[in-house]
């Protein structure tokens, strides 16, 4: 297209700008959560996350060290130090010693206090307090500063959510529980569906066309229908609530798509190769394991990614089939919903927990996007 003569450049700019706008709009909410998960409670609740990347002007109330740290030097009593505790990147623009006038002085000015005490504050927070008589009082002098503080991020939220053993709402256990649900709930349907898809694609038996049609029909059956009958069934046959039930449920619900995708793919494999293997003496089982499985890798990967994302992100199946009253088998999605209820305002915890649960699927997504796209195309365009 670009080679066509006389294409307007204004339109090209419009295309670029519209796309940039769209990408920003789509990315903005997620970035917000990511950034928030690295901010402290105070930062999150006092300013929008979009302010965190630039330095912010803050009004702070700080104290000098207490009088008992004063030293005598050349007949003067001195307290020396930094208002921020240690040297910081902060940049003080104005300061004051009274809450009524916090902008009396600029850095370097000398403020007169009672009893002839003077104090001077530098832009980086270093201060010097001098007096001819010993200073008294229990606490240090209050100093009000207006300072530019640079962006500041912390890993404390993640430490708290992931590593703190005393945090009953931590995500570690839920993370492993989610993993325990997800891996078999991905591998089992892939395996079961691959065998079934091979049979439906390449083996001759009566009723094959009917079965394919049935699979297509089951593709759209909402899993809501299955909740009560299956919960009843699980209770009756003694599975109850637990991993086995969740695996089976995920397998059942994932199978129609799996069989559909894999069969469509396998039907497209060259007939000659399979027949050649037959002439070479391979049994159906050998053909399946040695020829079909390796050749179907792209389709297997596509579906595996789907199923992985779906089971990792699932809430409903876990609520109904997995999590019992003890809560020992809780998964991350459930944990987050809990947090939304009990800690709705604590964004540092919410954001961090949510990001812990999102991180793995996002990683898989970016690593295996090619297969995901291929699977989507195979699953819908046909």
């Amino acid at each position, binding site marked *: 297209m670009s080679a066509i003569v006389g294409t307007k450049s204004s339109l090209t700019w419009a295309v670029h700008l519209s796309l940039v706008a769209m990408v920003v709009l789509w990315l903005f909410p997620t970035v917000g959560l990511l950034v928030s998960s690295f901010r402290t409670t105070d930062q999150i609740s006092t300013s929008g996350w979009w302010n965190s990347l630039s330095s912010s002007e803050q009004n702070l109330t700080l104290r000098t060290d207490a009088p008992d740290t004063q030293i005598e030097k050349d007949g003067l009593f001195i307290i020396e130090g930094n208002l921020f505790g240690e040297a910081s990147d902060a940049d003080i623009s104005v300061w004051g010693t009274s809450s009524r006038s916090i902008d009396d002085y600029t850095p370097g000015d000398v403020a007169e206090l009672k009893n002839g005490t003077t104090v001077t504050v530098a832009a980086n927070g270093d201060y010097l307090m001098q007096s001819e008589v010993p200073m008294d009082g229990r606490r240090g002098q209050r100093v009000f500063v207006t300072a530019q503080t640079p962006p500041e991020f912390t890993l404390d939220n993640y430490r708290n959510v992931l590593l703190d053993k005393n945090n009953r709402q931590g995500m570690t256990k839920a993370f492993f529980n989610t993993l325990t649900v997800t891996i078999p709930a991905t591998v089992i349907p892939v395996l079961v569906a691959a065998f079934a898809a091979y049979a439906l694609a390449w083996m001759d038996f009566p009723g094959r066309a009917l079965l394919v049609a049935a699979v297509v029909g089951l593709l759209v059956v909402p899993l809501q229908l299955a909740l009560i009958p299956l919960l009843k069934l699980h209770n009756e046959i003694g599975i109850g609530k637990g991993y086995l039930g969740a695996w089976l449920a995920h397998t059942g619900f994932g199978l129609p798509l799996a069989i559909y995708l894999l069969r469509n793919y396998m039907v497209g494999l060259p007939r*000659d190769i399979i027949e050649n293997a037959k*002439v*070479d003496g*391979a*049994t159906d089982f050998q053909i399946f394991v040695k020829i079909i499985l390796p050749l179907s890798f792209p389709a297997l990967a596509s579906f595996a990614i789907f199923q992985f994302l779906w089971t990792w992100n699932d809430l409903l199946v876990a609520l109904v089939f997995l999590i019992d009253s003890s809560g020992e088998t809780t998964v991350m999605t459930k944990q987050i919903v809990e947090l939304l209820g009990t800690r709705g305002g604590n964004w540092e915890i919410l954001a961090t927990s949510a990001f812990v649960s999102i991180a793995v699927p996002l990683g898989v997504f970016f690593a295996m996007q090619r297969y995901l796209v291929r699977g989507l195309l195979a699953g819908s365009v046909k």
Partner: protein
Amino acid sequence: MTNLTLTNVEKTYPGNINVLNNINLDIKTGELIVFVGPSGCGKSTLLRMIAGLETITDGEFTIDGARMNEMPPAQRGVAMVFQSYALYPHMTVRDNMAFALKIAKKSQADIDAAIDKVADKLQLTEYLDRLPKALSGGQRQRVAIGRSIVRDPKVYLFDEPLSNLDAALRVATRIEIAQLKESMPQSTMVYVTHDQVEAMTLATRIVVLANKGIAQVGSPLELYETPENEFVAQFIGSPAMNLLPGKIVDTGDTTRISVTNGGGVINSSVATREDMKGAAVNVGIRPEHMVPETSENYAFESTVEISEALGEVTQLYFERQDADSSPVIAKLQGIHRNVRNKSMRMSADPSKIHLFADGKSLHYQ
């Protein structure tokens, strides 16, 4: 010793679609049998029935006297080379060749020895560790052939193995297959093609399939010189044999026929009985056997509509009776200028003139 016999073999697909009927064929050790026929004649189906990839609806198929109808392909001792090569794309050339041997649980040493020997024979040694997609079409075809040789089968089956190659490569590979066959005189091969040049050059015997059955079985030259029926006569040879309607005017060791269109009377060395006198026949003359005639003993006289000068030969297309009939074609040696729109008399040597009644050759009556 490997004999294949097909006795009254029949193939009917579900829905009563009959594709092959009454096939009787005896294939002897060391023969290279070629199945030819127009597309859809069932030649590939017949090959696949021999391989065991299609069930045999009726009749019996034996290898060395043992009934094979129910045997799965693997147990028949056959190897097959497919048109699409059917190489396993995820395996190297070596693994492709080893696949069948591994399944048969041969020892690794035997497998290596067999592969090395065949790879050497087919000049594949340097490609053994490549994947099929890194090979050219001709190399892939050699791998497919090599893969079948490695197994040392009783019977080789080829399903249009050269159709996917370009013209030049096809000729080269055809010659390789001929040489391969020569180097393995005891192996039996069945070869399917729609290309009559392949059939003529490779075959020990050709099986022409048409109308759900066998039209004729014979050596290439038998089919050319003494076709049993009009179908084989027209199928073998290019351009196809001309068939001119006529009537027998004199019988005996030499038959005299008057040709309906174009008005000539001509002799044929085909002998006829007296009671055939007056019978309607088709006179078959191959284009390459036509010669211009000046005497009164000619087959027909007609106007040349188109002349194609190819240098080596000149092809003449004579005026047609009506738009739907195919023109009579003559293929003359050398260059003939200024023949277009001229009226010419054509005839042929009596020994080259075939006679067909009701589609069947009178040669065999």
